[in-house]
Each structure stands twice: as C-alpha cells, then as structure tokens.
C-alpha cells in the first residue's frame, strides 16, 4: 500500500507530447479514476505508474521515494489490462502463480496464495482451465486474481470492464469496488466511461490532450465543473450549453435576456443540466419538439428563445406531446457560467430567469 505522488510529470515521444505537467497525489488506500476520451494520455499515465514507460520529466514518488527509474518488475504493482493479458499457454492456476515465481515464494506457499486469490474473485473451480476456455468475465476475474496475488502496493486497472457485456459490467463494477475496500490497496482505474469512474472511484481525474482538466469527486465534476470540457464530458444526457453576451448585470442569450448574479461582462457560455430545468405554465416560453421516453425518465427536446434545450423529466410518461407550448424555469444556483474565451468556469456567477 502506498501514497503515490506525481510532480510535473511529462511524457513525450519525439515531438509528440502524450502527458504534460501532471501533478497528482493519490492517498494510501484511495481509489482514483483517470477519465478522459481516447488519446488523452490516461493509459500513458498508467504505464508510467506501472514502470513500463519512463517519464521524460518530473518526479514520480511512491511513499515519498522517487521511483522514476525503478523497473516495472521491482515496483510491486498489479495491473489488469483491457485485454486481460492472460498467458495463453498457462492454465488459470499457473497464471495466478506467475507473479509469485519471481518473489521466491516456495511452491506450497504459492499454491496456497493462488487458491486464496482465486477464492477472493470466485474462480477456484476454474484453476485447471486454460484461458481460451474461459468466458470474458472469468478471464477478467483471473486477471484480477493474478494482479492481487502478490499483494501489490498499487493496483492499476486499464479499462477493465470495456470488453464485458452490460450485465456483467454491472456486477464486476461492484466486485472490484468490494475487493478494493477489502484489501485497501491504492487503486488507479483508467477509463473513458464516466459511469465506471463515478460509480467506483473516490476521486476522479479528468484528462484532456495530456493535461489534467479537473480533479474532484463525482459531485464536484457534475455540479462544479472547472471547464466547458468537463461540463460537456460528464453527465448523460449531456448538459445544455448556450452562448450569450453579458453586460450591465444582464445576460443576452438568443432572443432572451436573463438576469446575472455576480460580476461578469463579455462572451460567456451558460450551462444548464437537463434535469435542473423545471417545466410549468409560466416562465420562459418553450415548444415541445420531441419526446424521448428513456424508461425511468423522459427526455424532452424543446425549442426556446434561448435555442434548443434538452430537459429531463422524471417518470416513464409525461403529459406533454410534440407541439405543446409550455413555460420553463430554473434555479439560479443550478446555472453554470463559463468564460467563452478561456473555457473556464466563472465561480460565484449565476444566471436567473427574467422576472415575469
């Protein structure tokens, strides 16, 4: 178990910079997710933590000690790959025992530990099988057992659920979370799936083109996104973003003028989560363009003076139809404003619907 620290980490290949100025502290026993679209440098970061890539610049610290040059084999890190990377020529038992071979663990002891790890992920019946004879979920469990058997100080998960079907993904998600809680191993999960990140991790690191965009809890990212990128990346259905001009305490959005709380002027972007918009007879006039039932909720597409908006309504059916006229409103504290130039959030600035 370890406290991991990245200080000004950069990784580049030739002229291509994959990760730039990365600063991050992962506390002992913490579960951190690195979230971002493909090509954002999240896997590169993971491989630097594993010791497969060496950072070009900066310091990587395990419990305060610099490990930049420590080889992968000496770092005591467990890793689960997206492809599971089981050794195809070894049966499950020998796969799980493989890491112990290099630690000089005596054979009986190794077998006992392997069985223990197999029990932990519930594959003890499969020990004699070959990887090709296992289903995706079973391979996943074996890969977890192999990563855990050596009691690593850091567990790395590289898109571990993306090759599983939806139902299995759900159960593996809680399984991994349970294992992490039980063992208390510091864990880093790399994913492009916001649901995986928000459901499993204590904290989430959002990355974009090699840089950290924001670090925070799921709630931080959702309610107080630092940038337009985070706001639009987190949340499904996605946030409504409309461009506006702020001046003299008013915000001009499309054909509508909103009131501003806070001091700001110039080009801004107003963000409204689909569920923070309330519908009633009064307020900003809107016309229903489309109704999309999503099961537990219903998504409405509205045409408003602010432009098209998505609005989420609870319940499988709503009393609205295409073409209906209605009014909408929102609470000022739910509105999020961004500077259009820097794309950063404007703290303590909110917009309010015009007074009727």
């Amino acid at each position: 178990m370890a406290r991991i620290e990245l200080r000004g980490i950069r990784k580049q290949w030739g002229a291509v910079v994959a990760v730039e100025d990365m600063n991050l502290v992962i506390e002992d026993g913490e579960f951190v997710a690195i979230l971002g679209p493909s090509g954002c440098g999240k896997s590169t970061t993971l491989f630097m933590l594993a010791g497969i890539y060496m950072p070009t610049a900066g310091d990587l610290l395990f419990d305060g000690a610099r490990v930049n040059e420590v080889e992968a084999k000496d770092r005591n890190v467990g890793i689960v790959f997206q492809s599971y990377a089981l050794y195809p020529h070894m049966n499950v038992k020998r796969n799980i025992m493989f890491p112990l071979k290099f630690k000089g663990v005596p054979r009986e002891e190794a077998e006992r530990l392997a069985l223990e790890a197999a029990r932990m992920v519930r594959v003890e019946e499969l020990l004699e099988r070959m990887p090709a004879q296992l289903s995706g979920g079973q391979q996943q469990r074996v890969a977890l057992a192999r990563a855990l058997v050596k009691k690593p100080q850091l567990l790395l998960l590289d898109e571990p659920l993306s090759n599983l079907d939806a139902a299995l993904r759900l159960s593996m998600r809680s399984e991994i979370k349970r294992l992490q809680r039980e063992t208390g191993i510091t864990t880093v999960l790399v994913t492009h799936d916001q649901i995986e990140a928000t459901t499993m991790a204590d904290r989430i690191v959002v990355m974009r083109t090699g840089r950290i965009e924001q670090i925070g809890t799921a709630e931080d990212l959702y309610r107080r996104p630092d940038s337009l990128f985070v706001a639009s990346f987190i949340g499904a259905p996605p946030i409504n973003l409309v461009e506006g001009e702020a001046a003299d305490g008013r915000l001009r959005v499309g054909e509508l003028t909103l009131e501003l709380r806070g001091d700001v002027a110039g080009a801004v972007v107003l963000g409204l989560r689909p569920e923070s918009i309330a519908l009633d007879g009064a307020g900003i006039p809107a016309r229903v363009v489309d109704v999309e039932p999503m099961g537990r909720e219903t998504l409405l597409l509205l045409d408003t003076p602010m432009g098209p908006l998505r609005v989420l309504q609870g319940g499988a059916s709503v009393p609205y139809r295409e073409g209906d006229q209605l009014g909408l409103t929102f609470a000022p504290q739910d509105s999020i404003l961004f500077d259009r130039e820097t794309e950063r959030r404007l703290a303590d600035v909110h917009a309010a619907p015009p007074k009727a």
Partner: protein
Amino acid sequence: MAVQTLEAPAGAERWQMLAVRARRRRRLTDSLLIGFLVTVSVPIILPYFWMLTISVSAKTGGVESVVLWRASGVLVPAVVAFGLLRLFVEGRRLLWGGLMIAAIALVALLLLVGQDLHAQNYRFLWNPDIVADIRGRATAEAQFPSVWVAFRNSLALAVTQTALVLTVSTLAGYYLSRFQFPGRSGFLQGLLVLHAFPAMTLIIPIFLLMYWSGLLDTLTGVILVIATLELPFAIFIMKGFFDAVPWDIEMSAMTDGASRRQAFLQVVLPQVKVGMLAVGVFAFIKGWEEYVFVRTLLFEKQNWVMSLYIFWVSEDIMGVDYGIVAAVAVFYILPSLLLYIFCQKYLVQMTLGGIKG
C-alpha cells in the same frame, strides 16, 4: 398433431423432391472432386512407389520392368478404390475399409512380385564396397566412404544449421518486431530483397570467400553459407509470428516481476512455438537436401553428405545397378519423412505472418 397439419401433402412432396435433388448434386460434386484428386495424386505417388519397389526388387544389370508394371497394377486400383470408398462411407468405417484395401493390396503384391523381393540393394548399409560386385575388389577398394559417414555429416550439417537459423531468426525477429531503431525499415526491405536473389548467383564469390578464409572443404563453411542464405526469410517469418503476440502479455509479465529476458523466455516464446517449429523443420530439410553448395564447397570423401553420396553412387553405377541407387534414395528420404510425420500436426496450424489457421 400441429406439425402434421402444417405440412400439406403437396408441400411435403415438393420438399422431398428438393432434398433428393440436393443430395444428388452433392454426391456429383463430391465424386468429381475425388476423381480429380485421385487422378492428380497417382503421378505423385507412383514415382515414390516405384523407387521403393525398385530398391527392393531390382538386380544388378537392369530393371525388371515386369515387376514395376505388376506393382503399379496393384497400387493404382488400390488408390482408386480408396477414392471410391471415401465417396460412400466415412469415419471409422472409412478407416477400416482403407485398412482392408491396404491389406488386399499387400497380399496381391506379395503374390505377384513376392518372389522378386530381396534386400541385396541395401548392402551399402553395412558394406562400403558397394561397387565390388561390378568392378571387382581391387578397383573398388575405398572408392566410397561408408554411408554412415555421409549420414553423420548430413545430420551434423542439418542439425547445426537448424540450431543456428532458429537461434538467430528468433532473436532477430523479436528485436525487429518490438524495437524501433535507425534503419529498421531498410533492414526489413533488405530481408525481402535478399531472399529474392537466387543463391546460385553468389556461388563464385562464396567459393572465393571460403577459399580465402580457409573454410573450403569443411562442414563448418557449408553450414555458415547455408544458414546465412536461409536466415533472411526465417527472420521475416519469425518477425511475423512475434508481431502477432500482443504487447499486453509482455507488459503484464514485466509488472508481474519478470525481467525483459524472463518475459521473453517464459511468456513470449511459448506463443511463437509453431513458428519456431516451422522455421526449424524448413531449415532442417534445407540442410538435409542441400546439393548445390555442398557439391561446390566439399571435395574430400570424408566430408561427403548424403546428397553427394547419392550423386556419386548414381554417377558410378547408373546403367548397371539401378537398385542400389533407389535403395540409397529410400534411405536418404527417411529422416525427412519421419520429421514431417511428427511435425505435420503443428505445421498445418501455421500460415505466413503467424496467424493460426
């Protein structure tokens, strides 16, 4: 009951007719295919069969063509019969039928040519003076080395060159597959270009090279030459196999505590076993059958390999004793044959580029 009502009598008849027609068509294509295969396989099987027949039946002074025709008269019908059998039965019954045909053919052979069979042509295995009968002791003395000397040389040549090709091509293929280095793409193109040149064009420079380096008329020299010429293609094949091994398992092995070398030996190498087997078998066969370079670079009797032995035997005795040439040929073929029989199960799994079929 419900099913019966669904099948109207007219419809059922129609289905019946379609089924019969499909069965007939399938049988027709099958028989055409098998007929074609039998026809083209007879000219391939026949020479080997004749070689075997001559080696156990021919006597000094000429070939008894009667024996050949009789033997062929048994073999060809047997092959055709097996083709027909294949058309009508399958599985265990095919196996038993095949064995039955083989037994009948064997009995027929024994009845027809049994009295002509003898092992005299194989005398070279224990008596080096194989020309004694023809030329008399005095002239024949020590003209030929023992066949076992040639056999041993051939084996040494093939095994050593296989080991050499296998080691170098595996390591080089791995490096080419995994590492980026200046000149890599040029090197890869070079491998293909090198393979495209006929080796014969190099024979004079290689001769001079061997002469000046003092390796002329040594097995070592020949081994180095053949291995060198074999390597480009072998490296290329091995690179293809390594390319097919995912990076993930190697990275996984290294985070599991293996060094790069341990990861290579314990995790990557087992994935390319089939490729190594293929490269190994081809290198062995190449070394075993090599003729051009051994003919050019080896002179002394003590350095003869099997291909030279069979060449000199046929050179000296041809026209007088076909039997012994055929017998040497049978002896020469056996190791390759055994190798193929043991490895063919694995070899059919391979395709160029390393993707298992």
